[in-house]
């Protein structure tokens, strides 16, 4: 059965209603002439500010799960780049080992020649 009742207002619609009220109160604050009036208006304004804060908080929190889902993709890309970097480092390492071995052979032969004159 179709629901013919009034539709639920969106978070933004609620936000706009309270935002408008807050702005009206703010305008009223600056034209109020006595400190008592200002104090009273600011007291109401404060409560509306708390509601708007809660709405903004909920708006931001509504995306936290989406961020959590994306965190894995970012970590995966980092791991894959690490692996690629390791592959490239390995190529450099192989030549370094070859160079070290060649130098070590040179040194060993030099020492050997001193002890076992040919």
């Amino acid at each position, binding site marked *: 059965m179709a629901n013919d009742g009034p539709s639920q207002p969106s978070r933004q619609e609620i936000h*706009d209603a309270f935002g408008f009220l807050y702005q009206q109160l703010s305008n009223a604050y600056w034209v109020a002439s006595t*400190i008592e009036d200002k104090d009273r208006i*600011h007291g109401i304004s404060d409560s509306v500010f708390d509601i708007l804060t809660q709405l903004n908080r909920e708006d*931001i929190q509504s995306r936290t799960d989406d961020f959590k889902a994306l965190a894995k993709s*970012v970590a995966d890309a980092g791991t894959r780049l690490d692996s690629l970097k390791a592959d490239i480092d390995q190529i450099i390492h192989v030549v370094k080992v070859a160079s070290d071995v060649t*130098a070590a052979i040179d040194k060993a032969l030099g020492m050997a020649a001193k002890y076992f004159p040919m």
Partner: protein
Amino acid sequence: MTANSVTAAFDTVEQSYYQTQIQTLIVNYDKNGFNPKSIKPFLTSDDLEVRAKILGGLQEYAQKMSDVVSDQHVTEFDTQTKAFGQALVDLKGNPVLKNIAAGVPDTGLNILTTAVDSLGRWFIDYKRQKNLPTIIGDMQKPVDGICTLFIADIGSRPDDSGRGGHGLRDQLWRQYDSLLQLQDEFIQKSKDKFDPKTKAEEIAKLPLLVAEQKKADNTLKATQDALQKLSETHKALTKAFEKNNPSLEELISQLYAEGQRVKTFYEGLGKK
């Protein structure tokens, strides 16, 4: 840099929210006193941690990408092959091998070293060309998603009627509105107790807050623009690596450049 700006956006709103609560406490202290539970953060640590983790991950991704793409590896490889070439020359000159290696000219060793260098460089390029397009391509959707979510988190400031705002920009804008009223109330309530200098200083804070409100909002807006650019730049990076079908002219140019590099490398051998 963009990641730092986004972190700063959250920090700015959090600090300003704290400041608003402190100012409220100061103005209403005589009436309400102090309740330790009244000071609260704007966002929970769970909300902030996951965002910080994402931003840290993006920074690491950019750093690792820069490491892999940079010439640092190739330069290091050249250094290592040069050292290898020199080690071969030294070995050939070793008295024990002198007789055996007498027939091997230095030019031959240089050719061998250059071949090792060219092959290694080609292999490094091959590894990059084979892996990077996939990694960057797979990251495009998450990068787009992250930028869209952060842009939505930052939101928009309210219009002049007070409508249309949401997210960090709305929150920060309203906090400044509140701070302005609190500062004004503070002055109104204490104006008879201020000395002229203090009174002037406190009043001067009002227009400063108005200017700061606009400046802070513009900074958040600029961060949104930077996030938009980040997504576009990453897209361009994907296209750059997808471009695996260069024109003949480009190929010749690349070949020439590679030839020049090999020549320079070759000529540099044996010169310490």
